[in-house]
């Protein structure tokens, strides 16, 4: 039993699922990386970085979740040749911890008095309880999940 366990442990690093997970890690934003939506340098706003990583390893980075949603909604315009099924991972920056979190699972607060580099923002949170306290502190209007964010929601922020 012990030997089997040890074998398993040894084998684990090279298993394919692990390799895939490593590909999807958030990228290190380069100084020259620009937001494809607004054209601003992203590395200057580390607190608001959002990332879309494609299966082929290419990526797009944004200076706020709002621009990321604009990009995803209009992928054919910003990145012709890619479709939404090519997206391997989405990362947004948690407001409190400033760590990259899974953008699909995060909660987004709209209407708060915290402004990003592009004005009104969707402020991402990994935990719903964090988001709720934030809404009290910063006059947030609603807490939305990834699926419920529509073009109208994004447009209403501009």
């Amino acid at each position, binding site marked *: 039993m012990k030997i089997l366990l040890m074998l398993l442990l040894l084998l684990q690093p090279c298993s394919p699922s692990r390799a895939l997970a490593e590909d999807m890690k958030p990228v290190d934003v380069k100084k020259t990386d620009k937001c494809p939506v607004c054209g601003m340098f992203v590395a200057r706003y580390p607190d608001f970085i959002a990332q879309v990583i494609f299966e082929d390893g290419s990526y797009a980075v944004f200076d706020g979740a709002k621009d990321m949603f604009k990009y995803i909604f209009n992928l054919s315009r910003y990145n012709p040749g890619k479709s939404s099924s090519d997206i391997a991972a989405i990362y947004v920056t948690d*407001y*409190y*911890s400033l760590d990259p979190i899974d953008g699909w699972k995060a909660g987004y607060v709209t209407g708060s008095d*915290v402004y990003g580099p592009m004005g009104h923002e969707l402020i991402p949170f990994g935990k719903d309880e964090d988001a709720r*306290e934030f809404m009290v*502190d910063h006059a947030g209007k609603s807490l939305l999940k990834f699926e419920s964010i529509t073009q109208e929601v994004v447009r209403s922020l501009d």
Partner: protein
Amino acid sequence: MTFIQKQRNILDVALCSLLRRKGKNLSLVVAYVFVIFLLSSVMFITDALKREASFVLKDTPEMVVQRLVAGRHELVPTAYAKVIGKIKGVQSVSARLWGYYYDATNGANYTLIVHQDLITSPGSIMVGRGVARHLSAGENGTIPFKACDGSYLFLEIRSVLPSESELVSADLVLMSELDFRRLFQMPEGYATDLVLRVRNVRELSTIAAKVVQLLPDTRPVSRDEILRTYDAVFSWRSGLVIVIFAGALCAFLILAWDKATGLSAEEKREIGLLKAVGWETSDVLLMKFWEGMAVSLVSFLTGIILAYLHIFFTSASLFEPALKGWSVLYPDFRLTPFIDGQHAATLFFLTVVPYTAATIVPSWRTATMDPDSVMRS
């Protein structure tokens, strides 16, 4: 090529003219060098200190929470840490134990800090180089500390702290929590202050407001406030030095004023002669320009170099009384050489340029006059 040749010739005449009035010009250069030396010394030391401080303070926590009783800093219950830790946005809260200890026999103040590395080894301490030097104690030596109740605590030096940031660590004594509490009879469950780590600095004001709301007897101090205080202290100190040497500046201004308001009869005659032998007004002005340039540039560069040596090689030995703190343990610090280009340029434009202009203006007045009347007057 002819242009450069002409400039060289004019410069040659200018230098000869300067050498003819050796005494006057030499005293001028000495005063000039002295002023530049003082001003740039202050500039160098302030910039270097500020930079050093910003290096040291980079690792300071985003927020410190103190407890106040009757407006005075009091011990804070460590239970407060739990309350504050629940505030969203606070990554971690830790209690700090630190204080000052006055060593009556040596007349020195030490800064005592409880360090995590020593938690398992009560009885041993780590000391800054200043403390070690002052007590002439090395590794494995013991230092007696007089506790609040009058008894003595003998603590063994485990190591002497490296000298890199001696400005800060010279008077430091790191000890275990147990020894610290025994030394000051500090009750369990209390700490000197609480240290907060906050990732998103945008939240600092919200967190500070919440801390005060939850614990009304506390005072949160953010890192920006700490940095601003340090900045003010350094500016104040450099201001003090400036005031002390304002006299030198005045002397220089009088000198420059004297130069600007008139030429000596000899200088006037010289200009008249040059005009008489066929020099044009522009050539005379060019010569005066080179004269002024030679004096001020030589003085400026000498002053700056001397100041550089003074600050970074002799550790600002002239400013020592004004710049060092209240502690008896003076750190034997070496500042990292650093020059703020913008400040140096400001100094250049505030001294060299006005001085050069001051030499040209009166000459221009003389040079435009008829050479005959100039020499007769």
